[in-house]
């Protein structure tokens, strides 16, 4: 090896070490900025200016869980729409505990990025009682345990977390404020509540109230002017002045009213109380919006948002802060695109570009491994491979008054730190893509950079098989073949050929089910079987007709009860009489349900599937109609629930001791309640 080439590098390392030893930074391991209820307002003001100046903002979240049941995990056999349903279910059920926001700004003088990692503790409290239903969220035991392993501070979150209202909830709260029942929000004292209910019937009353409203308004404006300007001018006629006297009511200026009849007084009070309470409620709502101010800030500043494998994060943002998640992925992406016009997923970036793939040495693209490979200086405090010296994008971290150019809090799986890592990975990836920040002027917008355009607004709907969704168009595409060598080649799955089986005897393994079906429908009929959980399995047939063949065969076997059907090879599968079979569409219906039972077979029952074999349209018309109506009752539309409910009440009247129907009622009412809640939002 050439020694002359060696030397400068060693000198470089030495100088780095020296500079670190004598650096004026107080400590490279100060914690990141934690934001709770107590310092939220001041932190928000600071964050506002940081975001405004930023080139991009990295985000990350910690949730209470990911999947509400084992069968809701991501499978190879999930169709595009089902993947979205699974993301939706997760975002709707689990809560966000931490929200990391890290604005990055390029400082051309320092030739480095300035990062401001923020770690927000979030906890949705019911600060404004919108309806009488309580907030509820799910916790996945393993996720909570995982967070505990990384010393997550649950106390900080629940005791001190910042609450929030979604846009929908805020609108609802405002609507209640304007409506005559707005006093619900404001809890006036008892005697006043009675007067507020006084109806304005007489013309004289209406005129009087209007006049008083005007007078009170004038009085208030005068007082407010008074606070700013000089003494108030005497404009008020004497007789009215006798009736209005400015006094002080609990340290606030108030009017003392004389010479009105009690009826007039109650009318005046009503107006006064109303306007006052309206203002106070307004302030209360603004405070209750809480953490959503941060989301609104990110949206209104139109900055480039950077996340790592962030579809679930974005779905959480949508469901918690914007509106309930729509039922299809297309609606979801169009809504997201409206609020956040430019999002970049670093996982997409790392997998899509060949130079980055080479840099990553084809190792895992998980956030921590990408961070330590692409940003070794920040991750470990030194360049790992001395020989291949490459320019590293420098990142200086500012937390309040403290700053450091080699900061590492080491707190992995803390949202603020993960957001920081994501931002560093993105900055380094940009530099590898040939984006030179030194030439880059502050006015130039990263969102317009043509080198990033082809990666912009693409998210992995499911990382498992590289399904990518375009946020601008809603188009989906498979990952470019060959872009990632680790992955096995993309296999096209025909969902029409897939049969769903559940409730079979628990001793049967997927391979045994395959053998069992092959014995009946031919050795080449089944391509593969795939276990969903211990109670359910997918069977992929070689032809779509085989699905309906199987369903018909099952139906006839179950109806006839002779000796031959018991000797049939399928009887092993049908043993126990609880085996259900259906086409792929039923799987979608089951996934769309808001219920989550741990076992798939229980879920199917809870969703309301009462038939055992779903017959496909090409078959007998009559039984088909029958299944359809069952399917409808299984669907979670209000009408369907209405239908099943009326049926259930009849049943109860007939046989009030039937526990199963009691349970059904509870479940179906629960659905109604859910729907009511989501439509209210």
């Amino acid at each position, binding site marked *: 090896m050439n020694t002359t080439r060696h030397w400068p590098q060693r000198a470089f390392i030495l100088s780095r070490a020296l500079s670190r030893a004598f650096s004026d930074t107080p400590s490279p391991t100060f*914690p990141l900025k934690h934001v*709770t209820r107590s310092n939220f307002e001041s932190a928000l003001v600071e964050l506002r200016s940081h975001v405004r100046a930023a080139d991009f903002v990295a985000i990350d979240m910690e949730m209470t869980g990911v999947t509400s049941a084992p069968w809701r995990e991501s499978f190879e056999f999930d169709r595009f729409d089902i993947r979205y349903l699974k993301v939706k279910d997760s975002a709707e059920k689990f809560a966000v505990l931490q929200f990391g926001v890290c604005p990055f700004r390029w400082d051309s003088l320092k030739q480095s990025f300035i990062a401001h990692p923020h770690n927000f503790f979030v*906890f949705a409290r019911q600060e404004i009682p919108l309806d009488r*239903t309580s907030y*509820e969220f799910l916790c996945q*035991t*393993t996720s909570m345990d995982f967070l505990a392993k990384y010393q997550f501070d649950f*106390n900080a979150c629940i005791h001190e977390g910042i609450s929030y209202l979604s846009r929908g909830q805020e609108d609802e709260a405002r609507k209640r404020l304007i409506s005559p029942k707005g006093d619900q929000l404001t809890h006036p004292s008892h005697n006043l509540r009675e007067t507020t209910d006084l109806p304005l019937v007489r013309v004289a009353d209406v005129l009087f109230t209007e006049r008083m409203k005007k007078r009170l308004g004038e009085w208030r404006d005068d007082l407010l002017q008074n606070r700013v300007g000089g003494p108030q001018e005497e404009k008020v006629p004497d007789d009215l002045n006798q009736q209005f006297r400015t006094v002080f009511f609990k340290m606030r200026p108030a009017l003392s009213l004389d010479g009105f009849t009690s009826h007039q007084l109650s009318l005046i009070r009503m107006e006064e109380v109303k306007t006052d309470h309206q203002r106070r409620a307004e302030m209360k709502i603004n405070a209750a919006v809480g953490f959503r101010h941060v989301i609104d800030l990110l949206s209104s500043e139109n900055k480039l948002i950077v996340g790592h494998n962030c579809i679930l994060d974005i779905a959480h943002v949508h469901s918690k802060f914007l509106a309930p998640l729509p039922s299809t992925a297309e609606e979801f992406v169009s809504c997201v695109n409206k609020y956040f016009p430019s999002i970049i997923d670093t996982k997409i970036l790392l997998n899509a570009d060949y130079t980055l793939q080479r840099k990553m040495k084809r190792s895992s693209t998980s956030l921590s491994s990408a961070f330590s490979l692409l940003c070794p200086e920040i991750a470990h405090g030194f360049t790992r491979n001395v020989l291949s010296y490459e320019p590293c994008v420098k990142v200086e971290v500012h937390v309040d008054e403290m700053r450091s150019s080699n900061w590492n809090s080491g707190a992995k799986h803390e949202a603020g730190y993960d957001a920081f890592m994501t931002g560093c990975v993105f900055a380094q990836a940009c530099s590898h893509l040939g984006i030179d920040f030194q030439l880059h002027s502050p006015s130039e917008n990263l969102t317009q950079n043509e080198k990033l355009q082809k990666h912009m607004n693409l998210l992995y709907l499911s990382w498992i098989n590289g399904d990518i969704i375009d946020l601008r168009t809603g188009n989906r595409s498979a990952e470019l073949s060959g872009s990632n060598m680790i992955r096995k080649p993309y296999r096209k799955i025909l969902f029409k050929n897939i049969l769903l089986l559940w409730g079979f005897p628990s001793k049967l393994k997927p391979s045994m089910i395959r053998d069992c079906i092959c014995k009946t429908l031919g050795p080449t009929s089944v391509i593969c079987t795939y276990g969903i959980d211990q109670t359910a399995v997918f069977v992929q047939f070689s032809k779509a007709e085989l699905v309906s063949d199987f369903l018909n065969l099952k139906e006839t076997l179950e109806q006839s009860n002779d000796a031959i059907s018991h000797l049939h090879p399928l009887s092993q599968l049908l043993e126990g009489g609880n085996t259900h079979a259906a086409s792929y569409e039923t799987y979608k219906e089951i996934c769309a349900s808001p219920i989550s039972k741990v076992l798939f077979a229980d879920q199917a029952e809870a969703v309301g599937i009462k038939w055992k074999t779903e017959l496909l349209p090409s078959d007998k018309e009559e039984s088909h109609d029958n299944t359809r109506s069952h399917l409808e009752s299984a669907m979670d539309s209000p009408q369907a629930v209405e239908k099943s409910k009326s049926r259930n009440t009849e049943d109860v009247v007939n046989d009030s001791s039937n526990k199963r129907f*009691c349970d059904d009622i509870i479940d179906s009412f629960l659905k109604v309640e859910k729907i009511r809640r989501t439509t209210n939002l």
Partner: protein
Amino acid sequence: MVALIRRRFLGTKISLNSHRHKLQWSVKQVTKSNFSDSLQEFKSHLSASDFVAVSLQNTGSFSAPWNRVSSFDSPETAYLKVRRAAERFQLLQFAICPFTISGSKVTAHPYNFHLFPRDELNIGMPSYSFSCQTSYLTAMARQGFDFNACIYDGISYLSRAQELAAIVRMANPINLNYVVEASSSPPTVADTVFVERVKSRIKHWKKSCIDSTSKKIDDALVKSLQKLVLGGEQYGSRPCMTIAVCSERQVQLVSEMLREFFDDLVALKIPTKGGGTQAVRVVLTSSKEDKSLLERELQNAEEEQNKKMRGFREVIELVSASQKPVVSHNTLNDFSVIHSKFIAPLPLDVNEFLNSLQSNFPLIFDVNHMMKGIGPLENVTSIPAAVSHLKNRFFAPIEMELSHGALLDESKIHGQTVVRICYLFAKLCSVLKITPGSIQSSDGKVLDGYANAFRSCSGNSVESLDGGIRIWTNSPRKVDCKDLVFLVGIQEQAVCWNA
């Protein structure tokens, strides 16, 4: 490490200023670290006491107003509502207090166990997920609840039903002597052939094992080579051999044959993941003493495993085995949770539930229900309200003596409710002129009117199993279910016209 400590800088200091209760007792707080010690202590306290009071802290109860148990509910509906809540929410604290009443003196030993359903065995149990109600968590936070302590150091558990499933799933080897009973049917030809073949195989293997050990080979290399050549397996430090079996019948045959011909072998059953038997492993011991040593080792290992699986359930098992009367404030809620988390999933039928409960806890007292013995007190539902009500109306001084002394350390504040239940129960006994001593002697005849009556909510009790329900909490009028109409979908404004 510095960074990790730093991470907890925020919420770890929990202010307890919000505590305004006058009665403050010290309650022993139990987490993972001091569980086994506390269990021993609890055991002795339990056996010395006459009653056990319990109080539970859950992550929620009713999601919506209509989920709440109301006075319109029939016992079945009330049970179904409670069942739903018990399955949905998680138990985070279990306060339990063995106590004795002698005259006006109550001797109590309060414990507060912190629980978390950690998946210790990696089998998705005790629970995959659970719901939390925000209002419950914020209320707990206001009382200074330490969520970190609970999630980091909470004790896990498995219910009885889950333990059975876990044993099958874990597939640990089991000592055959405990499992297999003697066969009843006469052996077939195939059986005899199988037994003879296994016998000769074992004889041969045993001989080679004994030969090799008696030769005293010092060279380690030769030893290990010999091991390779002989294909000998090892179970710990002892040689062993695996015999493949294909049915439970063969397991039986092997075990009988071993008992008959070999007294220095220990047989272990190797189960499959599905619950069947895969093979029998035979372990050679050097002497009688060595054999009993191995058997003891195996038994200890099994107990250790069971203990790990049961976790906190050990406490419930102790209470259940002691058959001591259990006192609670809201029995239907509390015992549906206890049943679903520690015994088995809740049955659909309320009577089935009551039967199952009865067999585990023969005597259950509901202080709330006992309050009714004093008179119609529809508004006195909370414990502090009940205590102050009794204080104002009756003279019944109760002296409390606690094993852990007065409250000195603020962290010992959780689980105070359980002591209040003891106190209230003693006061009620005194007011109702019940001598607690007679409860044991006459097998609960004295308190019979109060035992096992499940109060579901104010105004309605499940004891009225005649299908009628009471309407309007302040009138004793009973209405038959048939005469009620269910109205759903009424506009919000229209609800309370004439209330």
